[in-house]
Each structure stands twice: as structure tokens, then as C-alpha cells.
């Protein structure tokens, strides 16, 4: 008969395996700590690289930005000058007709039996916000009842006058005495509108 006596205390109880439970626990903690250190080390290196790149980018930006600012200002000046030139081009050309051409055309189209007393040629605008009209207004005396009508036809046959004020119309015609008539003619065209 054999007798087995367990002399181990409860706390000294062991389990089967190559290493003890304590070693396993310490081992796993060490591995985790190692991985953590490695990861943080890599993160640190990455951070240092990022900061170095950032410093380099800041220096590069400071260097280039001052140069680029000058070029940007030059580009803005080019744009402003181009706009000014375009405005001046519109001002000098536009749909404007030379006034001496208008007065010469009126002179050549008015019949000899007419005497002008008032002539207005220009850009009329009642207020700043109102539209601009190219206007030709003539008034005076004529000999013969239909002289003013002839004058209207003559004025309308002039390409320069048509371009300036559109169609000229007889506004009024009134007998003064005998064959003398008082007349008024007017042509008006909205600036920028159809000719």
C-alpha cells in the first residue's frame, strides 16, 4: 500500500507547462510595453520629420511669398491698366459721331431757301439716371410751304445724320406771312440703341 501526501500549500500550486503563469503574465506585459515603445518611437520620428518639413516649408514660403507678392501686384496693375485702356477705347470710339461731321452734313443738306435760327446737336440727358439721346434740333424760317419737308428728306438722306440721330422729323411748320414759313425739325436716337 502506498500513500501519497500533498505537501504543497494552496498558493504554491503549479500547473503544467514550460513556463509559469507569472512568467507568461510578465512576458505579455513586456511584449505590449515593447510594442508600445516601438510605436511611440516611430510616431516620434514621424513627428520630428513633420516638424522639420514644416520648418523648411515655412522658410521656403517666406522666401517665395515676398517675391510672389511683387509679381501679384504687377499682375493686378496689368489688369487695372487693361481696364483703363478698354474704358478709354470705349470713350473715344463708342457710337459717338464727330460733331464737325454733323454740322458739315447739316450745312450741305439745308436748302438755300431756308435760314436756320437755332441749331442744337448733341447728347441730351435730362438727369444723371435718365437715358442719353443723340439729338439734332433745327428751327428757322423758310420760303415756300414745302421747303421744310424737302429739307427733312435731304437731312434723312445723309448717312452721317441718320447714324447720329436716326430719322429727322418735321415737328412744326407755320405760315409767318405770305410765302414765309416758320419750321422746326428734330431727330432723336437713344445712345447705344439701333441706328
Amino acid at each position: 500500500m502506498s500513500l501519497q501526501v500533498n505537501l504543497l500549500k494552496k498558493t504554491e500550486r503549479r500547473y503544467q507547462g514550460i513556463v509559469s503563469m507569472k512568467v507568461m503574465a510578465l512576458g505579455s506585459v513586456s511584449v505590449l510595453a515593447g510594442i508600445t515603445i516601438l510605436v511611440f518611437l516611430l510616431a516620434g520620428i514621424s513627428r520630428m520629420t513633420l516638424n522639420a518639413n514644416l520648418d523648411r516649408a515655412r522658410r521656403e514660403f517666406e522666401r517665395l511669398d515676398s517675391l510672389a507678392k511683387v509679381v501679384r501686384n504687377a499682375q493686378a496693375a496689368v489688369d487695372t491698366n487693361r481696364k483703363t485702356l478698354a474704358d478709354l477705347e470705349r470713350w473715344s470710339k463708342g457710337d459717338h459721331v464727330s460733331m464737325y461731321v454733323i454740322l458739315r452734313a447739316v450745312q450741305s443738306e439745308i436748302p438755300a431757301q431756308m435760314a436756320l435760327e437755332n441749331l442744337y446737336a448733341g447728347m441730351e440727358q435730362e438727369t444723371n439716371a435718365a437715358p442719353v439721346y443723340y439729338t439734332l434740333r433745327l428751327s428757322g424760317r423758310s420760303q415756300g410751304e414745302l421747303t421744310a419737308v424737302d429739307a427733312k428728306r435731304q437731312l434723312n438722306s445723309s448717312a452721317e445724320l441718320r447714324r447720329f440721330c436716326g430719322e429727322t422729323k418735321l415737328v412744326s411748320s407755320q405760315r409767318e406771312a405770305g410765302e414765309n414759313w416758320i419750321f422746326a425739325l428734330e431727330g432723336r436716337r437713344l445712345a447705344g440703341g439701333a441706328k
Partner: protein
Amino acid sequence: MMNWAALTKKQQQMVIVTAVLAVLQILLMAHFLGWTKPASARGGSAKKELVKLTQQIDEADKILKREESIRDELNQSIEKLEAVTVYTPTLSDRYAWAYEYVSRCATQSRIELDNLEEAVLTDDSKKIADQPYEISVSTRCGYNSLVEFLNRLEKGNPLLRIKDVTVSSLPSQPQSHQVRIIMQWPAAVKVEKGTQ
């Protein structure tokens, strides 16, 4: 394999605590490294600043590559504008400038000027420099002289615009007319030269 039942209570607690700590550690590490955030939000302010700076450097590079052509364009636009500024009144002494020009044309057309005055500005919303410069000229002359005068005025200055002409007959002088001319120049021309 570990025999769980063979472990004492204390050992079982140790294994549980180790496992919990390991999981916590992994979670904290993942959070610290930003793996819990979306890819676009990772990297923090430094990375964002770097991305922004890189874009700005690229833009600066692009515009610097065009520097020569921009300089050429600027010089050309300055030359063109300076060539036309001689036809606009100088802002500091516009009346004298206009008077000299109109008077010279009048003399060449054998016309005597009665009056030359600046028009009153009516558009208060604009600065003086941004408004066309307008003057009114009064004279007495024959029709042919008037046409010649206008011809000289308009041909001698491409930026001068005759706004209107009013001609009235003078009963006492059949060969002469009372004439009023309103003429305009564009607002003062500003030449931008960029930062030198």
C-alpha cells in the same frame, strides 16, 4: 494550453487584469496615434499647416514662373497709357490745361473765345477724379469757322468728346452766330505701375 480551472483565484485575477490592461493599452495607443479618427482628420494642425503651405508654395512658384511675361505686359500697358495721358487734363490744373488747348484751336480757326468755364459737377456719388471733365465754351463766329474749330478740337485730341453744340443766329450780324459748345474729357487716367 492554459488550464483555467487549475489556476488559483489570484492567478485567474492576474490573467484577467493583464488582459484588460493589454486591451486598454492597445485602445489608448490607437487613439493617441489617431487611428480612431477619419483619414482626412489625422495628422493634427501641423500636418494641415504643411499641406496649406505646400499649396501656397506651389501657387507662388506658378506665378513666379510667369514673372517675365507679366513684367512685359505691365511695361506695355504703362507705355500705352502714358501715350494717351497727354490727351487728358492733369488733375491738378485741369482748367488751365483745357484752356490752353481750346484757345490754341480757336486761334488756328480764327475764332475769339468769349467765355470758357468748367461745368458744375452734378453726380455727387462719384469722386471728382472719377467724373468726366466738362467745360463750356462760348463764342461768336461764322458757321464755317465753327466747323473748322470743331474739326481741330476733335482731331487734335482723340479723347475729347463734343457733348453738344448750340448755334443761335444773331439778327444784327447775319454772318455771325452765337455758339455754345460743351466738351468732355474722360476721368483722370491713372497709370498703375505695380510694386517696384
